[in-house]
């Protein structure tokens, strides 16, 4: 599903160049649930941004579902993001003047899906995350866990190939974190590929595979026995 070869990325900070990613080789199969771990500054967010086409790579290659991702202009990148990827952010990033259902329907709007169909799908995904009765509420009326679940529904709505989650539980207490992880595991059970950046051990162990990044290189890449979040809920 994802194929990365010899990925390099550096940032220009004034006169100094900061080499963040120093040759990453990494692939993800369909249906995997991968945790990317590392301390801050290890390059995990940069990696996720490149995977999410929010940032460009300097060197190496990136193939997503057989499509080489390089030299995209903004319009093309937007199209690919819409078609291939679903984002889940640490700070939820819901649009605060739109209701839960409208937020979920947003990626579909960009795909020019008709209004009625959009609403139906949005409700379907909200139901999946258990928030159907909250559909007409604004984000400000929802709790943190609910917001993240709306965000997950939104990421799912466009039926992307890969879900990218950047510290999805970073802003939540542990109980809500487990609820969200439970949801993510269930989505993964249905065969969706999910990449998740975290620095929490317990969250990482709820994935099927852990990739450790340190100073821009992968120091460890292992399969783990998944801890089901269900038991903590």
């Amino acid at each position, binding site marked *: 599903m994802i194929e990365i070869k010899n990925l390099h990325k550096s940032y220009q900070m004034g006169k100094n160049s900061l080499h963040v990613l120093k040759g990453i080789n990494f692939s993800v199969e369909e249906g995997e649930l991968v945790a990317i771990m590392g301390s801050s500054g290890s390059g995990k967010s940069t990696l996720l941004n490149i995977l999410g086409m929010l940032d460009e790579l300097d060197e190496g290659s990136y193939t997503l579902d057989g499509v080489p991702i390089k030299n995209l202009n903004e319009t093309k990148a*937007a199209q690919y993001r*819409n078609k291939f*990827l679903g984002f889940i952010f640490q700070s939820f*990033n819901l649009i605060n003047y739109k209701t839960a259902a409208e937020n979920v329907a947003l990626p579909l709007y*960009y795909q020019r899906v008709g209004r009625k169909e959009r609403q139906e799908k949005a409700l379907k995904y909200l139901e999946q995350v258990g928030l159907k009765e909250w559909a007409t509420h604004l984000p400000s009326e929802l709790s943190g866990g609910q917001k993240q679940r709306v965000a997950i529904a939104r990421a799912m709505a*466009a039926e992307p190939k890969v879900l990218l989650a950047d510290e999805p539980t970073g802003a939540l207490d542990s109980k809500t974190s487990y609820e969200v992880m439970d949801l993510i595991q269930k989505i993964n059970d249905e065969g969706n590929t999910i990449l998740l950046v975290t620095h929490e051990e317990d969250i990482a162990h709820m994935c099927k595979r852990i990739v450790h990044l340190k100073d821009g290189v992968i120091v460890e890449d292992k399969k783990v026995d998944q801890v089901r979040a269900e038991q903590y809920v």
Partner: protein
Amino acid sequence: MLNKDRWKEIIEVLSRNVFRTLATAFGVGWGIFILIILLAAGKGLENGIRADFGDIATNTMFMWSRSTTKSYKGLPKGRRYNFKLEDVKAINDKVPNLRFISPRNQLGGFGGGNNVVRGLKTGAFNVYGDYPEIIKQEPMTITQGRFINHNDIEAKRKVAIIGEGVKNELYDKGEPILGTYIKIQGVNFMVVGSYKKKNNDGDGEEGQKEIFIPFTSFSQAFNMGDNVGWMAITAKDGSSISNLKERIVNVVKENRKIHPEDKRAVGYFDLYEQFNRVESLFGALRWVAYFVGVLVLLSGIIGVSNIMLIVIKERTKEIGIRRALGEDPWSIKKQILMESIFLTIISGMTGIIFGAAFIYGINAVLDSVGPVDMFVNPSVGIGVVAVALMILIVSGLLAGFIPAQSAIKVRPIEALRTE
């Protein structure tokens, strides 16, 4: 492009900070308001001055004889001369594109003594010897009877058409006038009609105190021979009298043996030139109105542009999210432009409505206090409103352009980083 979701979003965004939106809208509305008021005021002045010109055929010149200032062909300078009837014929033959040539003779005049008698009543009036065409050059309404006709001219009938002012002085109220006689400098004329001139302010009263008699009868009765006092010459529509006057004057000079270089021997007044001068004044007024109005509007537009920039700053993160979700940068740009255009048009239309209401109010006041000099019916046409709308759309586009550009310049990753 104009789907429901976009509209909903535009309304949502603009209604999020109502006071700010209103303040911005006021800037644009005010600009358009000023533009409309200025144009209407200009139109009011134009209408007022046009009303002063009345229905007089403006493509007309008046020509009269003076003294020669150069000796020519053995004739001395300082010689008095008169136009003759043959000059009228000569002008008619030699100068094309003339509609009317009316030779006129005149008795009385400003401050003249009493020259008209009826029974025990007397009065001082201007008496004109005229051809029937004069009524088309100097329009008047016949209130009773008829005007001079060609039979009168040929038969040299002693008939007269009197003004309403003359009637008031020489007749009792309600007294029939048709068929009665008045004595003009000792010669009896039968009244066959009366006229009323449209009010040309100032001369209004004077204009009603005139008596018209056939040119030929005038010449005979008052011993004018074939002399012509002055002429009113109107060109055909489409050719201007200003271009023809040189040739007309030259014909007269040749006939009357006046030195071709003698510039002062023939007096004339070119009404069309005056009219054109006023016309170009109106043009200049309109131009000034547009100039000032658009400048005032411009400051409103800059306000809109400014607010849009602030809105973009506030929405940086939102725009980042939307782009991460896969919104086309073009779609974002379009959204911002439409917000800007929408805001400008709505506030501009409000300005137009207020401007129209204001003009309506002014008109109501004008109606109630009666006519004001040189100011009649200030108004703006639908064409002006259309132009104002065009200006608004273009300025909305301009106002939104820079903000929209800056909105899509932000890369999504940077936008998302702003907390």
